[in-house]
């Protein structure tokens, strides 16, 4: 994409990216230190350079577990160990699909309204509890229950937008952060009141699927991944092909211009948050069949989603998917090869987050941002 942008020249490239990237942001580039001293062409080049730099960093980040693993003898290169490696990478990849799906919701809200939804993990948790309640009290299959949890989530998202987020659009970022954090806290403790702090799990598809002799993945991970992929692709085409999708993208690019062009921006905000909430709840359903959860587990999903959207680029749909895969696989590698690595998984995630912000705030797929 970037090569093409270079060839087309700045103006044309701007338009090109606007259409080919669902939420790509063309808001005035900040980072004045670079921006003002140098010409436009230079910026483009520095763009490309930062992309290379980020790529180099990511390669180093992926290589590091191997290097440390070899140093400490946890990497063995025999067929048996490669089997373990394959299993871990594959299951990380599958996990990444699910992470990516709910991160997409976060990136949509961020892209369209410039609000960081700090309650996103709690929305995921809400999805897990809805699924659990449907399964436990009504005996509905966790995947089937999406049929009615998604509409509930959509309405929930619209209500949140109407009551809270509409007032936050255009405010300093602290307002949005605090409002959504407050929402998250309220949701946690309401959930504790209803469901107590006991951990819940949904026993679902507990067997393994043997891919090769030495590589196995769990059934429920495979199911989750397939569902996540289906939903993500569905939403992608919704954004890409429908009028609503186009309106959402237009609003993400520039709300004022969109309004002038006849887009009902208020409605678009409602729909965006509705879709984002649905994606989070769907993510919750898919998480709930794999892992245990209690009202306080939401925060880990929030932080993961933050890392993913920063890695992928704000408001960038494909970026979020790619970010999800990259994060989950890196986490798996760190955990497998570095001594006491599981304790360092989070460090890898936050290290990645900060490094990406410093090297290229726009992320892998995004454009230049301050």
């Amino acid at each position, binding site marked *: 994409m970037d090569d093409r942008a270079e060839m087309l020249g700045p103006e044309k490239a701007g338009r090109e990216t606007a259409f080919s990237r669902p939420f790509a942001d063309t808001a005035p580039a*900040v*980072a*004045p*230190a670079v921006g*003002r001293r140098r010409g436009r062409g230079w910026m483009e080049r520095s763009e490309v350079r930062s992309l290379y730099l980020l790529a180099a960093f990511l390669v180093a980040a992926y290589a590091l577990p191997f290097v440390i693993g070899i140093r400490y003898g946890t990497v063995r290169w025999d067929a048996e160990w490669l089997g373990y490696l394959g299993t871990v990478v594959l299951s990380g990849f599958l996990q990444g699909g699910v992470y990516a799906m709910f991160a997409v919701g976060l990136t949509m809200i*961020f892209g369209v309204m*410039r609000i*960081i939804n700090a309650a996103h993990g709690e929305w995921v948790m809400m999805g897990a509890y809805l699924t659990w309640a449907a399964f436990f009290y009504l005996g509905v299959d966790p995947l089937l229950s999406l049929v009615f949890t998604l509409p509930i989530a959509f309405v929930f998202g619209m209500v949140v937008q109407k009551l*809270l987020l509409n*007032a*936050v659009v255009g*405010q*300093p*970022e*602290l*307002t949005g*952060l*605090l*409002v959504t*954090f*407050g*929402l*998250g*806290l*309220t*949701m*946690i*403790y*309401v959930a*504790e*009141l209803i469901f107590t702090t006991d951990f819940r799990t949904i026993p679902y598809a507990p067997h393994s699927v043997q891919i090769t002799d030495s590589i196995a993945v769990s059934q429920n991970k495979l199911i989750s991944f397939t569902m996540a992929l289906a939903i993500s692709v569905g939403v992608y085409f919704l954004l890409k092909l429908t009028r609503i999708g186009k309106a959402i993208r237009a609003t993400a690019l520039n709300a004022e211009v969109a309004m002038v062009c006849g887009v009902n921006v208020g409605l678009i905000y409602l729909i965006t948050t509705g879709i984002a909430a649905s994606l989070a709840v769907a993510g919750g359903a898919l998480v709930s069949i794999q892992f245990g959860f209690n009202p306080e587990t939401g*925060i880990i999903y929030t*932080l993961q989603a*933050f*890392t993913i959207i*920063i890695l992928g680029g704000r408001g960038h749909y494909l970026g979020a998917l790619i970010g999800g895969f990259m994060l989950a696989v890196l986490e798996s590698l760190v955990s497998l090869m570095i001594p*006491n690595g599981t*304790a*360092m998984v*989070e*460090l890898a995630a*936050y*290290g990645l*987050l*900060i490094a990406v*912000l*410093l090297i290229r*705030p726009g992320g892998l797929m995004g454009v230049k*941002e*301050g």
Partner: protein
Amino acid sequence: MTQREHLRNLALLGLLALGLLALPQGLSVYLTSFALFTMMYVVLALSWNIISGFTGYTSFGHVAFYGIGAYACAILVVDHGWSWVTTLFAGALVAGLVAVAIGYPVLRLKGPYFAIAMLGMAEGTRVVATVWDGLTHGGLGISFPSVENSTSTYYAMLVLMLITIAVAYLVAHSRFGIRLNAIREDEVAAEALGINVTRYKLLAFVLSAVFPAAAGGIQAYKVLYIEPQAVFFVQITIAMALMSMLGGKGTVIGPVIGAVLLYTAQELTWVNFPTAHLIAYGLFIIVVARFMPRGLIGFAIDRGWVRKGMVH
């Protein structure tokens, strides 16, 4: 502001100091602790306000400095036998150095990106404190030997609070503070006017890092046991931001009022209604952020109760 007003404010601060100095004599240990933690939140909210209120860079991970201070105190006292008051300075120094090291790159980020980077930073520091076993004892935490500490920590916190208020006041009324405000309002224009924005931002960031570190150290010595989960708790950052916002961020008196009011309100409600209190806290955050972005001070100015420009 005129000379007279400065003098009067100084006198008021002195009065407050005198009142608080005498306080432990008349109060039970518990209320002394309560006053201590209230003052701690005043320090935290005011410090946060220097970078986020004056300068406009929303730090969503300020608890990192508090945690670093707590760990510096615990490690130096327990493992190296330092006297605890010295460790407060050491903690502040470490936090200041960390602030320089991370502030230099991270302060280039704007708005939400800075907020997220700071959040990642704080969480990352917590993980480091957990993983770096040889230094921090990881998840085992660090336990101090038992000592009588309620008066000593109280006075230490009092002194720290007075210093913080004084520094915040001086910053707010100096050219430095005006420049920080300029950066908040329009960074590009500020730079065009010849303000060295990088240096001022970094200085503000360092200032806002050292006081929480000292507060963290005092807190550690007060509680006598620290572990990563407790001292790198995300909600402490939220509390700093919320208190500033409640009172009125970007002012000096605002965070002070916000911290005192919020901490007292929490203390009074939660003992009686554990779960309901937390739900109410969540709702309260929403209400404050949604309806009072300028805080009580802004509210008072709008009503004409106080004159704008007076409440710094």
